[in-house]
């Protein structure tokens, strides 16, 4: 076999590999993601977390005085810290008047009412990202089997359209990052157990970790009614191509609930 032929064969083999490496950035995020791996920090951000909470948990873990405490205890301390020092300090008097909401008043519990955007985007379990035609992407969540449409052509919501539970989302690519901006969200509850208004404005930035194994969300949430300034919330998933979103259709409200019990 001539050296030229061998070289040609090597090039033909190498070509698809190079082609994959040069595939459009958006393909890096499409597919099924689910619960993060079992590490302390990944589990701390399995639903939602903040930089303040992450820094606090690291400090607690690095303090020899805490060596006798469990991960659950330290995570609870860091979670309480981020609630008080980061979230609560940014709430307006209007939001503080009912903060933190009693979980017994959660319409998701009492009436099986699906979550609004400010909880759904941090929901546990799967998130499937997939294109639906050239101008839109779908974000499909395991929790509540909820689906969000993200318009990639920047269209505004139709005039006169009332705010909805999951709002109106538009998306764009900034390099490898999918940026989703959402407005027109009906007043509802946040994942940090506060109320928000229909002035909610959310910018989500989805990126894949350098090793490809994790999907990372950084969401900037603004709402002049409930927040003095925007808050930045994080969440992560792991690549889970075999995970399946199962039907979510057997919700039954409880027979009785007790108010005033801290989760």
């Amino acid at each position, binding site marked *: 076999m001539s050296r030229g032929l061998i070289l040609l064969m090597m090039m033909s083999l190498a070509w698809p590999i190079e082609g994959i490496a040069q595939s459009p950035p958006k393909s890096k995020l499409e597919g099924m993601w*689910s*619960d993060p791996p*079992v*590490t*302390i920090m990944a*589990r701390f951000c399995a*639903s939602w977390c903040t930089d303040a909470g992450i820094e606090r948990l690291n400090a607690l*873990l*690095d303090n*020899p005085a805490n*060596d006798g405490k*469990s*991960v*659950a205890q*330290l995570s609870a301390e860091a979670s309480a810290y981020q609630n008080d020092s980061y979230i609560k300090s940014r709430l307006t008097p209007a939001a503080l008047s009912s903060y933190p909401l*009693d*979980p*017994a008043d*959660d319409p*998701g*519990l009492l009436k099986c009412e699906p*979550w609004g955007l400010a909880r759904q985007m941090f929901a*546990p*379990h*799967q998130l499937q990202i997939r294109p639906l035609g050239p101008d839109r992407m779908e974000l499909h969540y*395991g*929790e*509540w*089997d909820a689906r969000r449409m993200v318009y990639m052509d920047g269209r505004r919501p139709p005039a006169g359209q009332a705010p909805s539970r999951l709002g109106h989302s538009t998306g764009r690519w900034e390099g490898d990052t999918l940026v989703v901006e959402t407005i027109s969200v009906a007043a509802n509850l946040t994942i940090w157990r506060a109320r928000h208004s229909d002035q909610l404005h959310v910018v989500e930035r989805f990126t894949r970790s350098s090793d490809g194994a994790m999907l990372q969300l950084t969401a900037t949430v603004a709402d002049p009614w409930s927040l003095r300034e925007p808050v930045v919330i994080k969440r992560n998933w792991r690549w889970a191509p075999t*995970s*399946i*979103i*199962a*039907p*979510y*259709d*057997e*919700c039954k409200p*409880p*027979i*009785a*609930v*007790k*108010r005033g*019990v*801290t*989760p």
Partner: protein
Amino acid sequence: MSVARTILCLGQVLLLCAATVTAHHAFSPVYDSKRSTTVAGVVVEFRFVNPHAMLTLDVADDAGKPVKWTVEFAGQLNLAEIGWTKDSLKPGEQITVTGNPTHVVSHQMAFVRIVKADATVLLPAAAQRTDILEQERRERARSRKQSP
């Protein structure tokens, strides 16, 4: 053996009484995480569904008469992550269930632990992760102590 056995732990047995289930809402308004109940009985039905899997169990009362108990789990989404299927609990199986009872309703609990007749132990996802996370915490403390 199908005689109900109930243990109230009031916080001493933290492992058994720890909050066990996370799903589409907090369990605290419905279940008392500070108390624990254990019953032995026979599986009538296991519904592997969302948002919460549900188990119906026949438990004999003091007179030997079967009483229906309900056990609430995290949903299929959560349990599937740790390998559960619709056949993880089969009708007719003899099991012992430990859980957090409700604040108000009788004969209902949130799943904390199941022991099968062959001694197989089933735990919630969070409990299964505990050992791995504690190992990471210990290794982190050890490397801190070894660093100059």
